[in-house]
Structures are given as structure tokens and as C-alpha cells.
């Protein structure tokens, strides 16, 4: 699909503005009724998904050209998919796919956001988007007694991802994840310095070629370690990586044969099987923040190829074959909650916007790089929501969320606890090694 393929969606967008809010019937508190951070922050309709249908339609008609202003509208968007979920309550449209393809088009036409260029250069030169050197990639695991799937045999490969590999503040989470797996007797190894970026983020920015390139690389790597080390499962603690491996590679037809799990799913399994026992009581009132890429964007891809048609003698629009829409319902929502519920003493309160209609942390879609103030505003909104439901701490399951929450809390002097789910499990399981 290219952006022009969504012309019918552009035409049918009614300007109902549902894309700006969480689905109405699920609003629990009107202070927290907005779903789209971009529309909430930047006011103008163009910033909402519906507005982008309008802009695309105008572009298609030749009424406007791509310019800096349009790029700003397109890129001040977290690509978090809240709009997509809300729209589909009402319509058979694909706002998120459209926005994705629109970004790809901008890139294809050479309209690139300068702020993104260092990260893209870093990706090309160093296989990561954190402006760091390739050689430093394995540092996070230094001193960690864990197998290397490049030389050892292991059933499970723990994929750290760029953020955990390079963000020293977050190393303890990645290390804790490995500890927990080991403690449960999982035969786990890592790729260490031989990892490369999954390129999911680059894809969200519109650099589809990068996704193709890295998807092929990852597929080859996984095929190799499957063969040489006997790896059959990839576990990642990064939600971005998860959705890239699970969803995007599948979308572009470059899915690996290796099973892809998010750490929350794997921990849930280990706890259910009794291989991990969170025994220590954590006396804490927490709320769980659904990472977009684990939740609605972690829903498996649904391949559909066909045509739109109208049955003879009537006007209703149908798909042949019938199309199942991704409505966010099959994201990973329960596993993290089940893991948290298994920890004694932990009180889990839900925020007003959860699961499919969770509010983004602000780190998505390249915003954290290009418009850090917007990323922090978005995070501050979320932290306020966490406070509002009486949580002492906000727990996520993605390093990007945690990073953005930490940075934001530092600026706003918010004292709320910010955890990754893995850290809490580690505490509850108690003792290391």
C-alpha cells in the first residue's frame, strides 16, 4: 500500500474528530479523555489523524505541496496509534497505516526532517539510533555471566535492543531480565556486541528501506543462531523491538521462524509454571502504563489483500475477501498485569486510559529526538494521570517509556516512582543469582 492507496479513506473521513479522543463510551474522566497527544498539544485539526487525511487529500489534488510546515505536522506525531483505535470504533478506515505511508512518501520524495538525520546516520554507520559506536553495544552485559549465542548453545536469546544496550541508567533492567531468566532455569544467551538495531523506529520515521535492510539482517542472524546455537525463542524487554520483530517484520514479509516473546509474556509463563516465585512483598501502590508498541501496536499483523467493492444493488462498501481490521484488541495487555498481580503486596490501580486506548508516554514516532519538549509534555500528562488515580509509582515494560518518564520527572520535579516491570519482579523474587 502506498499513501495514495488510502484515497478512499481520505474521502470518507467525516471529521468526526473521534481520532482525537479515546472512544467516548470508555471515557472515565474528562480531564483524561484525549487520546491523541499531538492534537491535544498542537490544537489544530491538521495534527489529528483526520487532519492528515485532509492534507493527503489536498496533496493528491495538487492543492498543496510538501513543505516544512507539512513536515512539522506529519512529524509532530507519536505514531502511537491511539487515533487508529478510536477511529475504528466508528469507521472502516486506516489512519495509522495512512500516516505511516505518508511518512514513507515524504522520505521517498526527499523531504526529510533535519533533526532526524544524525540518528539515521548513526543507524547506517553504527547500527543504532542512539548516536553511539557499534563497539560499545555489548558493554551493558559486561561482567554478566551469560552465554553468547554466537559461540554457545542456548534455547532462548535475550535481545537487548539499542536503548538497553546503550542507556547506562537502564542497564540494570536488562541485566535483571537476564538474571530472572537464568534463575528460572531458562537456557538463555545474548548476542551482545553482535546485536543490531531492529529499525522499527526508523520505519516509523518513514525510512522503510532501513526496516527492510535490518529485517533481512535480523532474519539471517536469527536463522544462524537457530542453527548454530539451537535458539528457538527470542525474548526482548523492549516493546519497540517486540513490535518490530513480531509485527513489522511480518508486515513486510520478513518474519523469522524464531518465536518472539516480550519479557512480560515470558515472565508470566515462568510464574505460571512455578519456575519463578515472586515471594517478597512490595508494599507499593502502582499503576501500569501500557507501552503502545506492546499494546495496540503489538497486535499481530493481519495480512489482507483484496479489493473494495459494493454488492450489486446497494451502496455499502465491503471487502473481498472480508477484511479483519487491527483494532488493538490482541495486543499484550494481560501478561504484564498478571505478572504484577502475582507480586505480593503490590496494589495495581488502572489509569483512565488503558490497554488499547492508553495514552502514549511521548517517546514514540521520533518525537523524542525531534521535538523533545513535546515528548516531555506527553509524558507529564501521563504522570499526572498516574497521580490522579492515586499511584505511588508508574510501571512500564519498555525502556523508551521509562527513559522518557525519568527525563520528564527530573524536569518537572515529579517524585513519582518510575519502574520497569522487570525491576519489580526482580525485587519480589529476591536476591540475585
Amino acid at each position, binding site marked *: 500500500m502506498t499513501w495514495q492507496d488510502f484515497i478512499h479513506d481520505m474521502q470518507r473521513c467525516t471529521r468526526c474528530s473521534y481520532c482525537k479522543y479515546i472512544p467516548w463510551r470508555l471515557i472515565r474522566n474528562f480531564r483524561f479523555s484525549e487520546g491523541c497527544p499531538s492534537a491535544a498539544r498542537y490544537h489544530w485539526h491538521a495534527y489529528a489523524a483526520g487532519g492528515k487525511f485532509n492534507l493527503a487529500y489536498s496533496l493528491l489534488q495538487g492543492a498543496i505541496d510538501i513543505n516544512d510546515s507539512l513536515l512539522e505536522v506529519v512529524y509532530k506525531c507519536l505514531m502511537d496509534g491511539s487515533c487508529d483505535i478510536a477511529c475504528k470504533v466508528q469507521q472502516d478506515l486506516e489512519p495509522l497505516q495512512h500516516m505511516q505511508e505518508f511518512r514513507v512518501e515524504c522520505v*521517498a520524495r526527499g523531504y*526529510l526532517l*533535519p533533526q532526524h538525520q544524525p540518528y539515521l*546516520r548513526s543507524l547506517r554507520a553504527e547500527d543504532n539510533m542512539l548516536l553511539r559506536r557499534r563497539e560499545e553495544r555489548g558493554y551493558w552485559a559486561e561482567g554478566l555471566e551469560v552465554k553468547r549465542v554466537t559461540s554457545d548453545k542456548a534455547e532462548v536469546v535475550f535481545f537487548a535492543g539499542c536503548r538497553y544496550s546503550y542507556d547506562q541508567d537502564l542497564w540494570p533492567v536488562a541485566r535483571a531480565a537476564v538474571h530472572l531468566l537464568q534463575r528460572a532455569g531458562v537456557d538463555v544467551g545474548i548476542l551482545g556486541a553482535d546485536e543490531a538495531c531492529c529499525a522499527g523506529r526508523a520505519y516509523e520515521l518513514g525510512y522503510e*528501506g532501513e526496516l527492510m535492510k535490518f529485517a533481512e539482517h535480523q532474519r539471517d542472524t536469527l536463522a544462524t543462531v537457530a542453527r548454530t546455537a539451537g535458539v528457538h525463542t527470542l525474548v526482548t524487554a523492549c516493546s519497540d523491538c517486540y513490535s518490530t520483530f513480531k509485527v513489522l517484520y511480518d508486515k513486510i514479509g520478513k518474519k523469522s521462524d524464531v518465536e518472539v516473546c516480550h519479557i512480560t509474556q515470558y515472565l508470566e509463563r515462568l510464574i505460571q509454571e512455578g519456575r519463578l516465585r515472586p515471594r517478597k512483598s512490595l508494599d507499593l501502590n502502582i499503576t501500569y502504563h501500557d507501552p503502545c508498541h506492546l499494546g495496540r501496536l503489538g497486535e499481530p499483523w493481519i495480512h489482507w489483500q483484496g479489493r473494495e467493492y459494493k454488492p450489486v444493488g446497494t451502496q455499502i462498501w465491503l471487502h473481498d475477501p472480508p477484511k479483519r481490521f487491527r483494532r488493538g484488541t490482541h495486543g499484550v495487555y494481560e501478561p504484564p498485569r498478571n505478572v504484577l498481580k502475582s507480586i505480593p503486596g503490590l496494589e495495581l490501580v488502572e489509569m483512565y486510559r488503558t490497554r488499547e486506548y492508553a495514552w502514549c508516554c511521548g517517546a514514540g514516532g521520533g518525537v523524542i529526538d525531534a521535538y523533545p519538549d513535546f515528548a516531555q509534555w506527553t509524558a507529564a500528562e501521563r504522570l499526572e494521570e498516574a497521580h490522579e488515580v492515586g499511584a505511588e509509582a508508574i510501571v512500564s515494560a519498555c525502556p523508551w517509556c521509562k527513559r522518557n518518564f525519568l527525563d520528564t520527572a527530573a524536569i518537572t520535579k515529579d517524585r513519582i516512582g518510575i519502574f520497569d516491570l522487570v525491576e519489580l519482579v526482580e525485587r519480589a523474587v529476591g536476591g540475585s543469582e
Partner: protein
Amino acid sequence: MKNIAVCMKQVLDPEMPLSLFRIDPETKSALPARGAPPVLSPFDENALEAALRIKDDEKAKVTVITLGRRLVRAVVTASLAAGADELLLLEDASFNEFDPFLTASALAAAIRKRGPYDLVLCGLQAADTNAGLVPIGIACLLGVTCLTGAREVRLKEESVVVARSLAYGYEVLEAPCPAVVTVTYEVGSLREPGVEAFMSASAKPVIVWTAADLELEQAGMAGGRTEILRMEVPVRASRCEILEGESVQAKAEQLVSRLQQAKVI
């Protein structure tokens, strides 16, 4: 103050997956790939780094010159972000990046038109054609010395000194300025500009000239002298066989015999 011109070419991303590579049979040119924007040729980035290192040590003005039919601003302004002082874009639909003569003519004309210069730095070759002809053409047209394959470049009062890579070492050459020098990757990767450098780069001057500005027509240079007969995506077939064997030694023996059969060794 020294004036250094650096010629940098915008090329299709050489790391782009083959599956995205498309050729337009009509124009016999590569099509821009969806989701894979062009990049600056990596060799030319080395040339810019060489220029910036000179500028690190002495007062110098670095002008980057890029030629193309349609240049992507965010890509070419990376040179400014990295530290170049000005960017000169030669942009015209009549340009053909695959015609070294035309390209060299245009670049030479631009260099001359822009004013006095001490040094012209180029990458060893372009990452798309790998031809390496343009720098020599520029030198010829400007009537100056051309030194190729430099791993290090230094400027003296009236001359340029380069260390030129050889198979088993290097030689040091000196030539009077102005001169054209091509560099190898050994010069070092281009320093990575940060986000702020990219944002502030937009304040630096960008000059755009067309073929008409360069008066190529008048000089009889327009149109170029290269004809592309065919352009194809190479078909790469590979077959992978896994040799079975009891031991490493057995496998190695099998491998040697197979390689001999294939007349590889």
C-alpha cells in the same frame, strides 16, 4: 585564510536492500527507493573530514559543492552540520550524475566561478559508479595538479602535502596549490554532527546554481558525452550447501576436495 572546496555527491544509499532497488527502463536510471533516501557518498564524507581537519588547525573556509538533478536538502546539509562553511548546490534537470565529463565540467566551472581556491578535495570515487574519473577531470579542466588516494592531507604555505597509500606503506607527495586531491577512507570517517548542529546548519548559506548559471552551454559542455546503453539490477544467484561430516577434519577434507573440483584452488 585558505579556501577549500570539497566535492560531494548525493548517491543512492549503497546499503539499501537489493529488494528496494528499481530501474526505470525509460530513462535508464535508478529510481529513488521508497523509504530509502539518498546519502552522501561515503568517500566524499572522508574528503570533507580531511578538509575539516585542516580547518581544525588553521583558518580555512570550506565550501561543499554538490551536483545533481534533485538534491535532498536534509541529506546535503549534513555537510554544513558537520562543519562546512557554505554549501553550493549545482542543481539542474539536465545534469546527469552518470556522465563524468559533464559533472567534472560543471564542478570545475563552479569552482572557478566561486573565486580563488587553494585546494579541491574529492572522495576517491563515487559510491554509486565507483568510476573515480571526476576529480581527474576537474584537475584537467582547471589545469592544476591532481593527487589521488591520499590518506592524509596537510596544507603548507603555498603547497599541499599528502600521504598517499601504497600497497605496503605510503609515500609523501607535495604539489603547489591550487591542487585537486582525492582521499581514501583512511583519512577517517566524517565527524558525526549532532541534532543541534543539524538545526543550526539551516542558518548557514546555501547557494543554488543551475546549468545556466555555470554557462555550460556557452562552453560547449552541456549535454554530456556519455551514453548509457543498459542498466540492470545484477542477478545474484547463490547456493549454499552444508557439508556434513563426523569431525571438523572430515568436513575440511570434503571442503578442499570440492574447491578443487570447482577449480577454485
